[in-house]
């Protein structure tokens, strides 16, 4: 148990046999803590992926399986994906709160965005027309567009990612300082809704 977060499921690594505790049972992809093998989880079965990623260690306020506090709530980081943008990178952390809700925390050199996945109402075609500064049909302003390339992952994830995968993304800012992120990948448009948070508001738990 990690400060209020319980292990919901355990599996054994098909490569080294070590036990892998999972804090969220709907995990689809996990990296073995011992041998760093990438493991797919499908219908209670485990399968080794062909390639495993090893991310260079970086200084971060957030650490895998170490809970942190934000606005009177605790969050447990379950996994992270690192994306590159040429000279730098940012990380998308998959979190769950103490009530089991899922979140994504994007960290880009001090810029923190906490978001939740919502039903998408945007079409794939929208990505062909969006430019920075443009106002969308639902009165959101386009503040950033770009392409992300996956450099690898650590921990557990609710979706499968492959090193080298790319997707287009767009940040849309709302009137109440809210942020909407659209991602266009091979499975279509995914929409995430959330807000900017200050790294100074992130607290240690326990």
């Amino acid at each position, binding site marked *: 148990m990690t400060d209020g977060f319980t292990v919901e499921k355990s599996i054994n690594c098909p490569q080294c046999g070590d036990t892998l505790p999972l804090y969220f049972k709907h995990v689809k992809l996990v990296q073995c803590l011992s041998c760093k093998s990438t493991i797919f989880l499908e219908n209670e079965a485990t399968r080794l992926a062909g390639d495993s990623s090893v991310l260079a260690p970086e200084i*971060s*306020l957030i650490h895998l399986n170490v809970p942190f506090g934000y606005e009177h709530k605790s969050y447990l980081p379950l996994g992270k994906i690192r994306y590159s943008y040429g*000279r*730098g990178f940012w990380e998308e952390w998959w979190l769950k709160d103490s009530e089991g809700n899922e979140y994504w925390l994007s960290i880009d050199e*001090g810029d923190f965005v906490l978001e939740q996945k919502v039903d998408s109402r945007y079409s794939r075609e929208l990505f062909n027309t969006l430019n920075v500064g443009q106002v969308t049909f639902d009165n959101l*302003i386009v503040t950033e567009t770009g392409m992300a390339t996956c450099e690898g992952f650590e921990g557990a994830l609710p979706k499968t990612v492959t090193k080298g995968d790319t997707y287009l993304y767009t940040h849309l*800012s709302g009137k109440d*300082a809210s942020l909407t992120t659209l991602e266009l990948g091979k499975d279509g448009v995914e929409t995430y809704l959330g807000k*900017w948070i200050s790294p100074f508001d992130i607290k240690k738990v326990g």
Partner: protein
Amino acid sequence: MSEQIVSDSVSAIKCTNCAAPLNILGGGRVSTVTCEYCHSVLDLNDNYAVLSKFEKVKRPLGPFKIGMRGNIKGVEWTIIGWVTYKTIEFSDEEWNEFFLYSPTHGYAWLVYEDGKISLSMKVRDFDLFSWKVKKPKTLFYKKGHYILDDESYMFYIDYVEGELNWVAKFGDKFTCWDYNGVGYRSLSIEKNINELEVFHTTKLNKKDIYSAFNLEYSSKSKTRKDETFSDDDESPSVFNINKIFFIMPLLLLILAFSSLFYSKTVYDTSYRTNQKENFSIDSSAFLTSIKISVSGVGTANNKLSLYKGDEKIFYIDKQKVFFIKKDIGKSWVSNAIAVTIYLKLDKGRYHFIGEKNPNQSITTVKIEQQVIRTNYLIYALILFVFLLSIPYFKERE
């Protein structure tokens, strides 16, 4: 003066214009570096191509240098860039902003102006949509109240050195709206040709920052401009708010004290039988008080009616009370031997009729004009101090 220059996590390159060595200290979002020797602005996203060149080569005075590291608010920062700004209206008004980088907290600015030091960070969660529509004089951000400091002003870039996460050119102009809050905090909304950005700034203790950056702090480290104020100076907004904080209670106290001497007795007589008396009110300032007191037995039969001309404007006895301007509510308490009523009377001539059972008691009526009710002032004082202390204690938390 000692200084600590960062030696790790540095990538070294050569200026593509003059071949001088350049250290890259910042993270992946740094986009330009300005050579300290030839003042060429190099594009880090395009093989260090020269974007522009600063003609001004004289480095401004300032205590900080690129490469210094220090801990501010528990975060280790490295100074990676330096920008000097000047206001367009007053060219001798300038300040230096040192660009800070932390791998965990990103980027911030260490602002050095007239010897004062502040930490400024870009905020992303400010509702710029609403601000652009209303441009309010006062606004709230994260439970803080901020007041627009005068009008907007314009400034331009006068000097650049080191790394930035944007492309800065000499003479680039900005318009700024400063909103000042309590606790040495302010919000600045800056607009240039491309962007509209918001920065939250907190004043820092100069001595602490000098210590954090391994700088020797002494009276000699003060610049010429420092001599006009001390580190204990407060920002204009804080000074204004604190002025209100102290002056308002003082005014209320003065008002309460002066009320003891300000009122004027216009009638003060005792009577044993029914009485009709005239009196004049020559000032409508504040209130008129009518104090009725009874000695001996027979208090229950005392009645008093007040007239202006032929019109009855006030009446009181032990059962009921009436005032033409408003409902007074409670009357004279049945077992009380005195009552004081406060009425808002206009200037003019009045008369009252006092009715009672003859010879059973002595009734005294005292009428005073320009009376200030001190109990209201005390309530106002307590409420004022309470309301103003809320943000103060929140800031301290």
